[in-house]
């Protein structure tokens, strides 16, 4: 897991940085990259429970207002809304901008 996380960090793309229309594949979850007041490990588990798990294909469908936050992300067959602060924990590989 460590190495995967490091790979993602070096690629440096998190879901939280993507813009509307971007498509990507999730490669790792890294809580430490997100701002959260939840207990350690909690955000990761919640993300997985909502389908944001390694290997899932995602697409950013909508952005909120102001500051393009939160975002609505298509994950598999459902649409998940989340804030960019938490989306930063999701490391992705870009497929299309």
């Amino acid at each position, binding site marked *: 897991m460590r190495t995967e996380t490091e790979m993602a960090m070096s690629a440096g793309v998190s879901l939280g940085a993507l813009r509307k229309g971007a498509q990507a594949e999730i490669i790792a979850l890294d809580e430490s990259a997100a701002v959260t007041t939840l207990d350690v490990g909690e955000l990761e588990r919640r993300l997985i429970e909502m389908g944001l798990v390694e290997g899932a294909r995602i697409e950013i469908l*909508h952005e909120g*207002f102001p500051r393009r936050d939160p975002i609505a992300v298509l994950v598999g067959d459902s649409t998940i809304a989340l804030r960019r602060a938490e989306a930063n924990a999701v490391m992705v590989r870009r497929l299309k901008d």
Partner: protein
Amino acid sequence: MPKDDGISIRPAGPPRIALVGNPNCGKTALFNALTGARQKVANYAGVTVERKEGLFVSPGGTRVKVIDLPGTYSLRARSPDEEVTRDVVLGRRADEEVPEAIVCVVDATRLRLNLRLVLEMKKLGRPVILALNMMDEAESQGIAVDAAELSAALGMPVVPTVAIRKDGIQPLLDQIDRTLQVAKSEGLAPKSAPCGWSEPSARDLRDYHVEVETILAQAVGRPSRPHLATRRIDRVLLQPAAGLAILLMLLFLMFQAVFSWARLPMELIDGGLSAVKAAIDAGMADGPLKSLITDGIIGGVGSVVIFLPQILVLFLFIQILEDSGYMARAAFLLDKMMGGVGLHGRAFIPLLSSFACAVPGIMAARTIENRTDRIATIMIAPLMTCSARLPVYTLIIAAFIPQRQVLGGWVGLPGLVLFALYAAGILSGLLIAFILKRTVLTGAREPLLMELPAYRLPRPRNVLLGLYERARAFLVRAGTTIFALMVVIWALASFPAAPEGATLPAIDYSVAGMIGHFLEPLLAPIGFNWEIAVALVPGMAAREVAVGVLGTVYALSDSGDAMRHSLAGLLAHSWSLPTALSFLTWYVFAPQCIATLSVVRRELNSYWWPTAMFFGLTSLAYGASFATFRVATALIGE
């Protein structure tokens, strides 16, 4: 008392099944289809989570109890609602027997997310039936789910259902019979495996996902695709500028409807109550009993029940917004802005509802999962100007604010003052939320992790059943707690009775009058005279009651509108303008409503918060009135 082994000796009584599933998978629709109107809503002890139970007779002739558990994505509970779901299926609740069977409801168009919970449920070692709901939509989207394959892969019976169609639940009913038969034949020693569930780690959750993918590959011919119509609609409704404009328009419409649609029924209720009162007046000898019935019960409880039409219209809108899937979008659109003061996007609806009446507003705060977010929302709900304050505002405005056009003749001064009163409430509410979230209600900021469900046309039957439930809950409340409180306040305002040949109004001799006189020196610095102080006590029953009491203390014999007119004239002569402004300010902030305080107590299951609300808002009201009175006096003189 954890009973994790799942072996318990059943008390006599019908077998029970529990409905479990992700939010929006159609659990409530299924529950309604199973039970029709034979349902009962109560609260789980100690938490304000609704406990919905119903009864139906299976095709095999068995009476079955069914409970609709709060929707969840995981048995790892994250909110009081989800805790109830977890504890019931694990048999950890003392007040709820372990159900004989669990019906896991999944949305067939979103199996990827839904099946993960099913795998978790399987670990419980209890009989589980999988209801593949929304099969109509799955079919029209061309998703080919093979129920037999799915059943083989999951090791549990799988039945397709369409909860919104008359014949859509027959396979489920038949399966319930079969499952209960097996459970019964196993009798007191169920063969069900011991509970193998423990809180899953991140690794377990990932494993579940891998397993789901394998199962999907096996059992679903054509993979599901995102709902196209929903995507198209969202392109407009979630577009930042247009989306917000549409949301505001919707809210405006809702607000308008609350006041305009409800006017006629409210007048009818008012008329009905007055007629009953008049009949009793004519037919009964004067005395404490008559006063209790007319002033205490009809006057007190009636003043709350009169809001029923508004509450119904409000809940009608909320129910439709929820069932259609729009509510999650509203939270999405407002999350960032509400987040500015530390509130959750979902806080918006409770606050908006509070403009009609804080009681349903506070009840609507149940949709906020995080407790600190919910407390913050509830604490500022009374600052949203409820419609009970309108009679007070209009009375004082009519008496003191001249009918003058301002801002180049565009707006009238009275309207402007009314607007300022509303704005003062909203702004101070947001400010208080901000302060609360920075100080006492710190703690985790709940992530906004929610699904945006597909848009669906709300079904009249489900909307009506939901509405009926809420109306019932409100009336039960008005008939019990609020009734009792009203009687207490009536007693305070009626006893001891005025002595023979009394010259002052009767209320002056009562406990309420004494409290008023006692409070007078305390209230003098904010410009209140003793008449106001006396009116404040019965005003606790319902804000607008204060108008009537002012009429009484100023010894007016008129009633209704006539009284209001002459009272306005009288007040204009006997109060100074600073006093009037101070009184208005007081009404913006003061927690002048016992029904609100009691619903806060119940919803938060705490005496601390309503107490804090009472003293906090009273101090705020005092401070603000003091400032208003002093500034106004300095500017315009006494």
